[in-house]
């Protein structure tokens, strides 16, 4: 009786301790974001006097100024445009290639495939220098197309790998049936293979969307014209110009962070799957 009481109390107190630890870390994760959002509703006068997480008065003016006068509306749309274009590009180009690597025979197939895989492993920290020169030569620097093509390349290897692994495990019966019905190779890819690879496509889409939305270095060296910059670079330029206008900066940061948090919360199943799968493969 006494010993069972002892074990029960011990078990409960261990559980309480573990939850306290986990909750403390969770609060540490969330606090900076809540602080950012709260500060974006304060004014330059109240930001240092009102240190509550819920401001006494909500000033939506910061968002108005950020979007209208500081052009964050345009940067936001730029980011959306780049993200959507790059993700569509990657899905089409990488699924075509992955399907061929998985199903077809052609000379040099393995060499090409291992080339893509090697690109995943070898870090080249100075590659942005060469990309800058290359885009200059092609007259693609400071153009959205140049940035989009560079970013498609960044996501290509991993996406091909994920899709090829999936196609390898996919049963071929449906494709055979389609072929007997007279479907072309391209038709089979589009009507059979792509619709069946939904779950892995979701992983590819989410990861590349995160990567493009958060990308910084290539956007920094490629764009000179402010009007075509994505959010991440615009934020840094903004910080340089309005170094002390914190409420406005926090509004800009909120505009950049909230869409990605929403995308994450909606698609978190696929993100968690992708991280753990990617780790197992690596």
């Amino acid at each position, binding site marked *: 009786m006494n010993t069972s009481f002892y074990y029960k109390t011990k078990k409960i107190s261990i559980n309480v301790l*573990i*939850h306290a630890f*986990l909750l403390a*870390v*969770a609060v540490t*994760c*969330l606090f*900076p974001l809540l*602080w950012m959002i709260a500060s974006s509703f304060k004014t330059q006068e109240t930001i240092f006097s009102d*240190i509550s997480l819920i401001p006494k008065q909500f000033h939506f003016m910061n968002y108005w100024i950020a979007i209208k006068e500081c052009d964050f509306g345009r940067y936001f749309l730029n980011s959306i445009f780049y993200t959507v274009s790059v993700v569509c590009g990657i899905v089409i*180009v*990488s699924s*075509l*290639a992955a399907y*061929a690597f998985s199903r077809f*025979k*052609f*000379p040099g197939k393995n060499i*090409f495939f291992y*080339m*893509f895989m090697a*690109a995943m492993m070898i*870090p*080249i*920290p*100075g*590659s*942005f*220098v*060469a990309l*800058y*020169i*290359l885009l200059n030569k092609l007259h693609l620097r400071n153009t959205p197309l140049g940035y989009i*093509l*560079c970013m498609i*390349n960044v996501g*290509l*290897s991993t996406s091909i790998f994920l899709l090829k692994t999936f196609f390898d495990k996919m049963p071929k019966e449906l494709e055979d049936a389609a072929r007997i019905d007279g479907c072309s*190779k391209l038709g089979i890819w589009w009507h059979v293979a792509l619709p069946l690879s939904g779950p892995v496509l979701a992983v590819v889409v989410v990861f590349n969307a995160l990567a493009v939305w*958060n990308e*910084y*270095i290539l956007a920094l*060296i490629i764009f000179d014209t402010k009007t075509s910059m994505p959010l*991440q670079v615009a*934020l*840094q330029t903004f*910080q340089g110009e309005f*170094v*002390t206008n*914190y409420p406005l*900066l*926090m509004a800009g*940061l909120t505009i950049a962070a909230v869409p*990605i*948090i929403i995308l*994450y*919360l909606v698609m978190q199943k696929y993100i968690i799957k992708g*991280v*753990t799968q990617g*780790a197992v493969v690596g």
Partner: protein
Amino acid sequence: MKIKDTLENYCFVLPAITIFTVFYIIPFFWVFQLGLFDWDGILPTKIFVGLANFKEIIFQDKSWWQSMGNAGWVTLIALTFQNALAFLLAMACDREMKMKNFYRVIFFIPPVLSEIVVGMVWGFIINDVSGANIINRMLIGIGLPQLAHSWLNDPKTALTTVAIVHCWKGFGWGFLIFLAGLQTIPRELYEAARVDGANAWQQFKGITMPLMVPVIVLVAILTVLGTMQAFALIIGLVGGELGGHTSVPVLRILASMRGSSRFGYACAQGITFGVVLVMISFIQYRFSQKGKHN
């Protein structure tokens, strides 16, 4: 017929191979070629200097090695503190727990944010110019006013502050991988050990650790590669491309290219850094292989 078939197959991989060749392979070789030249990026003439760039990097460039040391220090903290925290949290979540999914979702929010956003938000929390930031206020509030200072401007605390913010952003990722690893360990092993009278520590030492070694090595390699190359977080935190006391190799490469217009030198720095990275991950990999055989 056969030729037509092969051509059709090539059409599937052609877009991928074209983009990859133009935007990966060509720049890759250019980096190696340009590393041997002195070039400002604009003039049509490049001056061949052989290995002079590399000599300068290795023997004269103090700020380069300083930046290497900085990245090394941040990496060391990420390897120990961040990964230990991630492992502890994963162990805590691995039990049968109702809120497991809640924690998993929350812990992975920092890793999905951009380094620029994280840097700027934390910069505001710890380093705003007027000194009225929330961390200093808390320190004063709990009676430690002597600790309140400009964390990122003080050379003594700047780098460690960067490292802590980096850990905040990164631990959720290690946590997810560790948790996935822990969940592949069959529960029967623990039950059998318990029947044999093994206590929690013995179970951890005898079952969890040995089975987790490959996962730990993987996370360690990826942590080193990721942290050594991190730089946007520092731009966000200190608000400039140079990084001041907290400069790291990628920022030095960027400075050589944009600041002093020495494209060849920037490429040589990139190669030096790439070689160091490959060497480190190779050594880590060899260590893990040795560990397996013993």
